[in-house]
């Protein structure tokens, strides 16, 4: 479904990565591994079309993504290493913005259950700026469930999380893969998920 063909990226004559080719079909979890500065984030930004690759193409469903970029975005949830929640709004206001932006049909009790699992229920009406880093990251990860997309692309999803949350997230990944979803994650941490495909960038 997602196919990277000979991807190369150069920044001012310096090659960040080259000859990257892999494909990700339904039900696969791919971990991009590499040391600091090996180009994990750059690769992800190239896949998501924020950066233009110097060479090579990215395909989604057999079509070049640049041809129909919004069709690709319609099937993708992208979790950055930054947190996209607005600091001035409460958790619920942020969630309703994401929900409506992605035209998701998730029900209210589903959202409540999700917040319950992540232990965020008591902060429902708290502004995001008063939450801790871990809680903001967990809030960010709820977008995976809220947006209900097929392809998940994550950059360092395990940052700032405690061990129980890491387990919940890993379980969520496994479930999504069972439901024929595709997951692409970049991380130093190697999570405990079976059928994990590791792609080494070094």
């Amino acid at each position, binding site marked *: 479904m997602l196919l990277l063909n000979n991807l190369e990226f150069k920044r001012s004559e310096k090659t960040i990565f080259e000859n990257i080719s892999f494909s990700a079909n339904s039900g696969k979890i791919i971990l991009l591994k590499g040391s600091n500065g090996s180009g994990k984030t750059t690769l992800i930004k190239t896949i998501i079309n*924020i950066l233009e690759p110097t060479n090579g193409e990215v395909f989604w469903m057999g079509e070049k993504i640049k041809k129909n970029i919004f069709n690709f975005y319609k099937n993708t949830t992208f979790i*950055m290493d*930054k947190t996209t*929640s607005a600091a001035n709004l409460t958790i619920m206001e942020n969630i309703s913005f994401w929900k*409506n932006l992605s035209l998701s049909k998730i029900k209210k009790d589903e959202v409540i259950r999700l917040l319950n699992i992540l232990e965020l229920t008591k902060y429902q009406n708290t502004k995001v700026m008063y939450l801790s880093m871990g809680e903001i990251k967990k809030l960010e990860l709820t977008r995976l469930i809220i947006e209900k997309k097929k392809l998940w692309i994550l950059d360092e999803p395990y940052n700032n999380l405690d061990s129980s949350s890491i387990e919940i997230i890993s379980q969520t990944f496994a479930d999504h893969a069972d439901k024929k979803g595709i997951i692409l994650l970049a991380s130093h941490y190697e999570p405990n998920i079976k059928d994990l495909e590791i792609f080494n960038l070094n």
Partner: protein
Amino acid sequence: MQLINKIIIFFVKEFKISIKNLSDLFTNIVFFFLSIFIFIFSIGPDKQVLSTFGIGILWALLLLSSTLSLKKYYHDDFNNGSLIIMHMGGLSYEFIAILKIISHFIFVQLPFLITIPIASLFVNLPYSKIILLLISFFIGSLVLSCLGSIAASMNLLNKRNFTLSSLIVMVFSIPVIIFSVGLAQSQENILSLLNILFAILLIFISISPWTSAVCIRLALANS
């Protein structure tokens, strides 16, 4: 239909954020009034002098106060990645820029429009001139919003010297100032000056979303 929903969602979010940041807007308005007072104190209490200089003073100060809020324009959305999320939600950068310009106009510039009648009391403007000033500010502030969009998006990666964006706005707002003040002070050829102001507005509306989108793309690629 989906697009309209997304537009509504965007404005609901902007409205909520600006309600929670009301103190910022209030500070800008206080800045505006305080600078008027400083002008009045430095010129002296001569009513005749004040009513001749009044419109120029008000317009210059409105311009300065509106450059104060430039830092808020795209910075928050850029720094926390909301711009990418909105883009991936199906809005192109150009469209996001248009929406941002409209929301800046509504939530930052229009409150100034309400304070202008009060401010013109202090500089002893006659009633007929107040209405002309309001009309010229209504058009001129939209131009300032467009300019602000360009300046703020150009400075997204600029972390140190933010005065630069104010400079861009001030340089390009010179024609707006000339014709707005001309409109408010003229007696006969109001319509032709209004047309020129509209022309300036149309030029900037047609330029700024695309310029801003290019700048946002560049900033995202280099961040």
